[in-house]
């Protein structure tokens, strides 16, 4: 826990400085999670504010300190899910507007302005975004939480409120679907490059 339960209790009682303290403690981590879940940097703060807005209005339902973090994750997941569903159509049309050549040209032109490392990060981010766009929002979020955020099955159990076996099945199926999209998207060279860069 990044804050004491006392602070949460004070926030529940309507204490604005206590709520600010909670937001300040969890803001960075929450925004990072949202950024990785939605892959749209320009909308991260908007979704982050929605998460803390929901937190503010549902704080009085919280009973014990130990469920606070999974609960905040749950709010984050729900807000990201709502965002992804709302923007899926828009994202699809945007992707179809740009041909692969156009994307490469834009990247090449951007290359003059941003350095190599930033360009590589952007490429990785876009590859993962494009690959995860091929599966459902639920699969995308579940896999990102497990594979990118590095959450354990126990933590995911608390967030999703389902047992470990059901989660394993869902994870396996989600991964199969992503693998299929991964194979079809031709991301292997990208992944190979990323793996090399990590070594």
């Amino acid at each position, binding site marked *: 826990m990044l804050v004491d339960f006392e602070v949460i209790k004070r926030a529940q009682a309507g204490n604005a400085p206590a709520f*600010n303290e909670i*937001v300040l403690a969890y*803001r*960075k*981590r929450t*925004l*990072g999670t949202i*950024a*990785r879940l939605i*892959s749209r940097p320009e909308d*991260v*703060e908007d979704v*982050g*504010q929605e998460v*803390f*807005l929901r937190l*503010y*209005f549902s704080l009085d339902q919280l009973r014990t300190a130990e469920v606070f973090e999974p609960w905040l994750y749950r709010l984050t997941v729900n807000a990201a899910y709502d965002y992804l569903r709302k923007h899926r159509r828009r994202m699809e049309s945007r992707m179809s507007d740009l041909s692969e050549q156009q994307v490469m040209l834009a990247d090449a032109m951007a290359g003059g302005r941003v350095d190599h490392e930033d360009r*590589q*990060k*952007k490429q*990785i*981010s876009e*590859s*993962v975004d494009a*690959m995860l766009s091929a599966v459902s929002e639920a699969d995308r979020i579940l896999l990102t939480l497990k*594979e*990118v*955020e*590095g959450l354990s099955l126990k933590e995911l159990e608390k967030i999703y409120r389902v047992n470990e076996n059901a989660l394993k099945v869902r994870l396996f199926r989600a*991964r199969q679907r*992503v*693998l299929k999209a*991964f*194979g079809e998207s031709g*991301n*292997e*060279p*990208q*992944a*190979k490059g*990323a*793996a090399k*860069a*990590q070594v």
Partner: protein
Amino acid sequence: MNWTNRGDHNSALDALFRAYRDACPDRDASPNFMPELWRRIEERQRSVFFLGRWARALVTAAAVLSLGMAAYLYIPHGPNSMFSVESYVEALAAGHAQEAPDLAVDEL
């Protein structure tokens, strides 16, 4: 390296996810984050408040209307009123006489 088999796909996917994690580190918010958050909270509170007021006003109006209707029904009106104060048998007899006066005369 051959990237076509499933095992390689799995490890390539893992590598891509790790690279993605590194490419998107935790980020801090802009200075406008907190003021904008509080603006949204206050906006939501205001809308909830107004919705509550509307709901209360609606309930009050419905209660007043119900009481008015009840009072209107309870207070006796004149004999030509649509709400009669005569007994059921009296009302039935009167109704029968009004509906079939000719039939009664022919039979006699």
